[in-house]
């Protein structure tokens, strides 16, 4: 049953999150440095007060207990660096931007990647196939910050077609989304191509053709549904890729998303923010996997989600 499956998955998710929270907490405390570090040393008396205020002078396990206790109350605390800014508000503000970019990048990657893969598969061993492979290899090998910088330079600075930073107008989305989706598009194109090549030579396709169905119907209604499975599997790692890729892209395009907050929080030793963001990212990734797993069941009825009693 689907419900049972989802509940089971969610329980595993919570367990993983707990382990992750604990591991991050202890690793974070193990790194040298503290949130009050700076070129100019603070007088020891003040530093002591600061440590006491945040409870850093207490034994590690006490701090850990406090932290887990707060987590269970869904209290992520306040940023240690940006005063009076709650971790929740940082996530809300930043995620708005990162989500828009991320979703657009995913849509673009899937749509264009699949289309490119289809073109390649349909023109196997002809020019378009080789050309698509070439683009795919480029996409996978060039780091996205190189692509981002090149796009900004060419289309932003030289041609002045787009603004170089910010997300204020619709056109501002074009360059960052291209930069973010370059690699996933390439990857999906290759996946689609090889998967479709396999599917297109299968028996049931020959049957469909001999039935007289048109090329388009065969392709999109029958072949694609089977060939899309590897792409669905890739959604999990792709989400991860886009999330991590967004760090650099957000930096280059001056977008106030979560990627930048994440990197800064580590440099600043902003403990509360580090924990909050790490857990948030973990939830996103786990949800992506969950959605992927559920999608499997809908796309390919041969896959049974729950082990055990048979049944179609």
């Amino acid at each position, binding site marked *: 049953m689907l419900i049972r499956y989802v509940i089971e998955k969610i329980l595993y998710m919570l367990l993983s999150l707990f382990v992750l929270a604990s591991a991050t907490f202890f690793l974070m405390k193990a*790194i*040298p*440095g*503290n949130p*009050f*570090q*700076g*070129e*100019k*040393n*603070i*007088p*020891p*008396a*003040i530093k002591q*007060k*600061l440590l006491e*205020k945040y409870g850093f002078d207490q034994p590690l396990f006490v701090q850990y207990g406090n932290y887990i206790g707060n987590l269970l109350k869904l209290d992520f605390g*306040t940023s240690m*660096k*940006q*005063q*009076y*800014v709650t971790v929740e*508000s940082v996530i809300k*503000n*930043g995620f708005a931007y990162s989500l828009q970019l991320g979703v657009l990048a995913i849509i673009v990657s899937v749509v264009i990647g699949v*289309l*490119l893969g*289809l*073109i390649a598969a*349909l*023109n196997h061993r002809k020019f*378009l196939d080789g050309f698509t492979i070439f683009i795919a290899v480029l996409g996978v090998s060039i780091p996205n910050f190189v692509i981002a*910088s090149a796009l*900004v330079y060419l*289309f*932003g*600075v030289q041609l*002045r*077609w*787009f*603004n*170089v*930073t*910010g997300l204020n*107008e619709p*056109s501002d989305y*074009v360059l960052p989304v291209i930069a973010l989706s370059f690699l996933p598009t390439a990857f999906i194109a290759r996946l689609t191509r090889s998967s479709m090549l396999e599917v297109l030579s299968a028996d049931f396709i020959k049957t469909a053709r001999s039935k007289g169905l048109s*090329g*388009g119907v065969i392709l999109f209604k029958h072949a694609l549904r089977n060939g899309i499975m590897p792409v669905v599997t890739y959604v999990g790692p792709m989400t991860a890729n886009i999330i991590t890729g967004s760090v650099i892209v957000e*930096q*280059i395009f*001056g977008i*106030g998303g979560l990627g*930048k*907050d994440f990197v*800064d929080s580590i*440099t600043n*030793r902003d403990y509360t923010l580090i924990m909050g963001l790490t857990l948030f990212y973990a939830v996103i990734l786990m949800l992506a996997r969950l959605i992927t797993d559920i999608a499997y069941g809908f796309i390919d009825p041969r896959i049974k989600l729950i082990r055990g009693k048979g049944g179609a």
Partner: protein
Amino acid sequence: MKTTRSIVVMLLVLALVLTGCGSGASNESGASGNEFRLNLSTEPPSLDPAQATDQISFTIINAIYEGLTRIDENGDVQPAVAEKWNVSEDGKTYTFTIRSDAKWSNGDAITAHDFEYAWKRALDPELVPEPSQYSYQLYYIEGAEAYNTGEGSVDAVAIKAQDDHTLVVTLVTPTIFFESLLSTSIYFPVHQSVKENEAFAAAADTMITNGPFKMTEWKRNTSIVLEPSDQYYARDEIKFAKVSFTVVNDSSSELNMYQTGKLDFAGMPTGSLPTDQFASLKEKYGEEFHIKGTASLSYYLINTTAAPFTNTKIRQALSLAVNRKDLTEKVTLGGQIPAYGIVPPGIKGANDEYRNEVKDDYFQEDVEQAKQLLAEGLAEEGLTEMPSFRLTFNTNDLNQKVAEAIADMWSNNLGINAQVGNEEWGVFLDNRTAMNYEVARAGWGADYNDPISFIGLFTSKSGNNNTGFASAEYDELVNKVDQSSDLAERVKLMAEAEKLFVATHSVIPLYYASNIYMMKPEVKGVYVDYKGDIVFTRGYYEQQ
């Protein structure tokens, strides 16, 4: 095939649509109305004058608040909220008269009570959200240190508002640069209503400020907008209609923004420009590209407690073997000035700049002499060759280039092996403070316009010494400087102290730093001061 064709057509249409919606990019070049646009590398962590510790926060605070005094373009102290003041005979008691037309942004009058409240607040050991990290800048005031460290009561702090317009302050020792300090953030007044709202500085609409500008918009991680405050007593001196900041962390992006007309100012201190493009930018932009020396020193610390650096001759050899001219002209490329002392130019001495009155000709680079000193030093330590050692710095392009260049100079000139290693900022600071290093990079900027801001670094009780150098004679000289109110005498004592310290070669001065920025030529009245802070309050656009 038909299907392929239709797919290809779909893709081409998509591409056309994208480029179509693209050319709608707003294309402003130069001044947009009367708005001054800059960039901040990061979000200001705090805009509470008592809590701010970084230059980005200070940039904003200096525009929306104002202290008793302010510093003009020449580094001289000018009256601000205090219209006049006098100092007692012994140099320890200051009596300030607050202007009668000074107002907060909500119309309330600014009184001496606001200053008393703000300074005592900055010293409050129980301040929320955290005790001020810069409270030690107030320790010149009698009773301040005791209160701040929990050893004394707030009533014993010698700050008194005698009436609404008279503020009396008594210092521990005559402090010549006190007037200069009054223009810094920790000494700014704070509206007493902050008692009721501890998060007053976290949003634009809860801040009541007294400076030439007020904040009208703050979108975290995206933008900050300032507009002139109509309550400011010198409102007609403020010409900009708006000052706005974007928050972009990447130096190349910042340069792109400047080049496409989105910024009127780019670079330090609020943002940054790509260091490897300095030479070409200078050539291409000429006057628009500025290099301004700042009162800040870049140097290497030597751990004088770790063998063989316990030997003065060995340390001296290292210093003499560095070619600072090559370093600044070929490596750092920012117009920095080679340093042979520890007090940078721009800092006031008795009548002129300290560095003009006291030449930093304490030593000269000399490779031959360095070789000899090294040999002698090693012999004294019973070594036949110099062991290899670590040269550490915090991860940063420029630091890396400098370290590699210097390690190279040492290798060629002295035949010694320095292992260049970068450490993450937090790790680096920890190691340096714990004296877990051999030679480490350091930098120091002026807190106020007096040489003691640098010379005081190396006393035995200074928390920023980090070298292991300790000398009773040095401490005594610094103590005498603190007690004296005679400008000439102070300079003489400080020169003696500097000479003593430099002769021990406990640090290797490298260069006096510079601020590199670009600014549209139509912008006037905006400058970077001796400290490296940007001052734009009286800026304006020249109509061309």
